């Protein structure tokens, strides 16, 4: 039984399977840095998987590899399979198929990822019009339905608004709506709630859990907040320096974190930290 109280059907298909992913990037002076070292994780339909790590852990890079968005100069090895499609070494058509209709990604700063000149309606419906060739009325109906599904009040008014008229939380909901427009099987969220207020974050997490239940969506949620992952994810992978150091259900990680890094991360959480207790000697970061 996962922490969220829902049994995860591990018999369900895996929307994402990453096996032994290794990524090297050549720097300016020719020296090669290994960013990811043998990363393996998976996510089933109807499951929320948390990928937790601090800056430099490689968690964002792992996510990007799932849609072949790694830097151009990176060399990757291993397996990245999205809904049965192999991404490493795939041709342009497969990559496009994955990006358009199998996987969708949302980022930390919604404002940086949206065209400020477009109305919300145009933005959310663009993929459907351009890629699927739907008619305008059909697109409009779908857009209204999506905006309602992500919990935006009064979708009829919101479609006419521009991004600057919406708050960060509302805009992030719009991004999720746009991501869902093409009915993906996999949703990749890269620090999607980090820039939001804590109450807004709670609402977005609630909405993601509902989407997971209603649509059987597979969600990979990248965050630096271990408590957030424990509270909302079914399974958690902890990353450090490009490697997965621990894996387990949310309850397992909460009750007995095994790896020293996980334990350190756990103890450093603001809700748990004791500032007066003498800390073990660690490198001054």
């Amino acid at each position, binding site marked *: 039984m996962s922490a969220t109280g829902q049994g995860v059907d591990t018999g369900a298909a895996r929307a994402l399977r990453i096996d032994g992913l290794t990524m090297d990037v050549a*720097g300016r002076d020719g020296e090669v*840095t*290994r*960013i990811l070292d043998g990363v393996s994780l998976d996510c089933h339909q109807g499951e929320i998987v948390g990928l937790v790590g601090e*800056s*430099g852990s*490689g968690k964002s*890079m792992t996510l990007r590899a799932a849609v072949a968005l790694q830097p151009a100069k990176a060399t990757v090895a291993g397996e990245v399979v999205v809904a049965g499609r192999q991404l490493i070494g795939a041709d342009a058509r497969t990559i496009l198929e994955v990006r358009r209709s199998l996987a969708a990604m949302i980022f930390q700063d919604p404002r940086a990822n949206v065209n400020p000149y477009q109305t919300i309606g145009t933005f959310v419906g663009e993929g459907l019009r351009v890629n699927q060739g739907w008619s305008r009325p059909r697109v409009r109906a779908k857009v209204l339905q999506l905006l309602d599904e992500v919990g935006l009040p009064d979708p009829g008014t919101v479609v006419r608004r521009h991004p600057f008229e919406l708050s960060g939380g509302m805009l992030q909901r719009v991004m999720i709506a746009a991501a869902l427009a093409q009915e993906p099987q996999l949703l990749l969220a890269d620090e999607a709630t980090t820039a939001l207020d804590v109450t807004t974050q709670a609402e977005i997490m609630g909405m993601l859990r509902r989407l997971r239940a209603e649509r059987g969506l597979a969600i990979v949620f990248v965050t630096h907040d271990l408590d957030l992952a424990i509270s909302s994810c079914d399974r958690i992978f902890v990353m450090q*320096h*490009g490697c997965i150091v621990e894996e387990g259900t949310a309850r397992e990680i909460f009750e007995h974190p095994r790896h020293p890094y996980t334990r350190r991360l756990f103890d450093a959480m603001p809700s748990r930290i004791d500032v007066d207790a003498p800390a073990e000697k660690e490198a001054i970061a």
Partner: protein
Amino acid sequence: MTLPTTQTRTTHLLTRRSWLSIRTRGNALTIAALVILAVLVVTAVFAPWIAPYDPNQVSLADALQQPSPAHLFGTDDAGRDVLSRVIWGARISLLGPLGVVLGSTVVGVLVGVVSAWRGGWTDGVLSRIVEILFAFPGVLLAILIVAVLGAGLTSTVLALAIAYIPYMARTTRSVALAERDTAYVHALEVQGMSSWRIGLRHLLPNIAPFVLAQATLCFGYAMIDLAGLSFLGFGVQPPDADWGAMVSAGQSALIQGVAAPALAPGAVIVLAVVSFSLLGEGIAERVQRTAR
């Protein structure tokens, strides 16, 4: 196994310690421009030793000769060696724009920084003054000043320095505005540091690269404008040679079929201006790329 950090090592331009060491790796055009300008500066400085003849030595018997081994650029209508005049002309032709840039930069930067720092009606008043200055073409200003002070290098340099103030002021103001709002400036204000100290010791050094880029571009424009003013007769008076005046004087030779007296200085003007523009663009691009 850390993510590669953004480059930090190549921009000596921005550190206090190695202000002048410009590592220009990567941009061939900028390096070429730098080389050409270095040659011009060296030529100007060592003119007495490089020039084969006395630039003002008149010899009517040798007038209007085509280029030959004895006179690489031929002679002008007074028999003076064109090459020597071009070499000596480098001094005035480079000094003039330097004066313009120094003058306009000092005043323009002051106006721009004060405007950005104080804001409010100080900014309003200064901006209106700058806009009025913008409306004055350099040539018009030159004519006015020459009418009062007489023709010569001083008059034209003064006129252009004033005409260029708004360009420097505008660039400086926009860069200073952005910098003024950064956390470290606020932190220093909270520290109780005086505005003058923050402005001089912290703000200015951090916007200096942008100002330098603009100033370098202005150097090129100043060179053209000064050459133009000399061509019109407002600048240095004969027999002193600056390239613009030489082009003007060389017109009669051109009509008589001897091109070098006008073409040689003209070509050098173009070479110098293009080089300054390339250098200025190169610096501006480096600054953009490395801005925090």
